């Protein structure tokens, strides 16, 4: 097996993209640093240039001015095919090659990079297992024999195939039904725990960005960066009205969904009343449970068998 590659840092340095004949730039003077191994979600309304900004990294869109550096190297200094083969690329419509089997699709980049057949095949099987498609069942299927969710899993495996230090994902789950989407979002998080890539993830869905992103970059019309911060801080302290409106009036509730009960330091229950909840429950769901039951507290069932209490006052305190 090849040695696992380290994730890399990405720097946007006054990156600007103007299309000829259009007054407003698509991406306007974007400057931000995405630390190695983190997921950065690019969000914003359509016309905000989030996909354009992402494509500056693998040069599917060429910079007008400024620079984008991957691991300290300007993308302009690299040959574009070499650059792209080192970056995993996932798009909403997946774009599986319909004439190739699942295994052939996944092995595309390893083959371009000249891996041996055995190496490529071992890697393919390993990746199909990683994305929860048992290699034995799926290896020789064609895209037309897969469901939408299965296709995107293959798309993810294909992007990970050559173990790129960096992944670009353009609304990868946007075309899936809500149940499949949630499942794949959670699997991406699980896979990211394991592989630790630097990921740029484009979405128009702020909830998805909050769930997936270590950091969120919000772009407004004209490709201007409105705020670049952690989900917690974007929800707690939106930089301006635009960001506040974009994250929604329910941003208090969204903040609650960032925290799970077992992450809190809670008082022992001592016979307190209220619905009994698991430790993995989010604060948001805990609040919902209180409202449902007309209770002012919930009891948390700890893994060690202890019971602790979360009160409504404590939630308000946490949001402050």
């Amino acid at each position, binding site marked *: 097996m090849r040695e696992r590659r380290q994730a890399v840092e990405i720097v946007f340095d006054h990156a600007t993209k103007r299309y000829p004949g259009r007054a407003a730039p698509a991406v306007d003077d974007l400057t931000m640093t995405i630390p190695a191994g983190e997921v950065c979600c690019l969000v914003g309304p359509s016309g905000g240039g989030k996909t354009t900004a992402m494509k500056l990294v693998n040069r*599917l869109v060429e910079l007008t001015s400024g620079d984008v550096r991957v691991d300290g190297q300007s993308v302009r200094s690299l040959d574009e095919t070499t650059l792209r083969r080192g970056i995993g690329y996932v*798009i909403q419509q997946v774009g599986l090659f319909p*004439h190739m089997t699942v295994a052939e699709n996944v092995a595309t980049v390893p083959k*371009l990079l000249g891996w041996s057949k055995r190496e490529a095949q071992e890697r393919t099987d390993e990746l199909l297992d990683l994305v929860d498609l048992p290699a034995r069942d799926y290896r020789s*299927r064609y895209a*037309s024999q897969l469901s939408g969710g299965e296709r995107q899993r293959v798309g993810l495996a294909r992007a990970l195939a050559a173990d790129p230090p960096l992944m670009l994902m353009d609304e990868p789950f946007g075309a899936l039904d809500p149940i499949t989407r949630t499942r794949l979002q959670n699997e991406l998080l699980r896979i990211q725990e394991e592989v630790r890539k630097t990921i740029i993830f484009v979405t128009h869905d702020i909830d998805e960005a909050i769930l997936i992103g270590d950091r969120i970059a919000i772009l407004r019309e004209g490709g201007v960066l409105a705020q670049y911060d952690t989900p917690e801080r974007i929800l707690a302290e939106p930089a301006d009205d635009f960001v506040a409106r974009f994250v929604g009036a329910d941003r208090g509730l969204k903040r609650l969904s960032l925290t799970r009960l077992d992450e809190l330091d809670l008082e022992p229950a001592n016979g307190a009343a209220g619905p009994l909840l698991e430790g993995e429950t989010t604060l948001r769901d805990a609040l919902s449970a209180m409202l449902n039951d007309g209770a002012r507290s919930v009891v948390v069932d700890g893994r060690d068998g202890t019971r602790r209490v979360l009160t409504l006052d404590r939630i308000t305190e946490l949001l402050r």
Partner: protein
Amino acid sequence: MAQPVIPDFGEASECVSENRLFCPDWVRDNWDPVLQPALVQHIQLTLIAVGFGFVISLGAALAAHRLRFVERPFAWVSAVIYTIPSLALFQLLVPITGLTVTTVEIALVGYTLLILFRNTLAGLRAVPPEVLEAARGMGLTAGQTLWRVELPLAVPAIIAGLRIAVVSTIALATVAAFVVSRGLGGPILGALRLDFRTEIIAAGALAVGLAVLADVLLVLMQRLATPWAASRRSA
């Protein structure tokens, strides 16, 4: 009823001398000297015509796929050729290339261009944009995208074009007998002049059988070459 003049190789059977609808004994006796060579020539005429037509059309379609301005002139020229009646086209060519196989092949190649060009280009253009974007994003070069993605995906359309081209060339190649005595058109034309029914039917049936066989072979070829399309059909 006037008695037709039957080619006499010594002892004509009763069936032949009465010019009945179909005489198996004549076919048996004339397979080696007449029908089989004509059939082989017919296959040669067809293969050469479709082969050259395919190479020219593929080249033109690839050019038109990259450079849009190539499409119109080539489509226009091949469409004009296609509208010229075959006998007229032979007449136009004979003063230049004479009563030769070349004349026949130029005409036959000309008739394949329109369908092969159109189908190949349509096949190349029907590759879904997201597939092309994925290919670019993964770092395939333009050439790799063409050979590994676009052409394989165009195969069903290309073979569909080949099927039409092959069948129509087999039919058209019989007319070649007006220019040069090659192919199944020779026996058919000769027998028409003599009103010899067995030979017309035998040579005609061979042409039809050849066309059907070629079509079946091409369908089988497509099934083998594009298993992914088969699974799509059944999916």
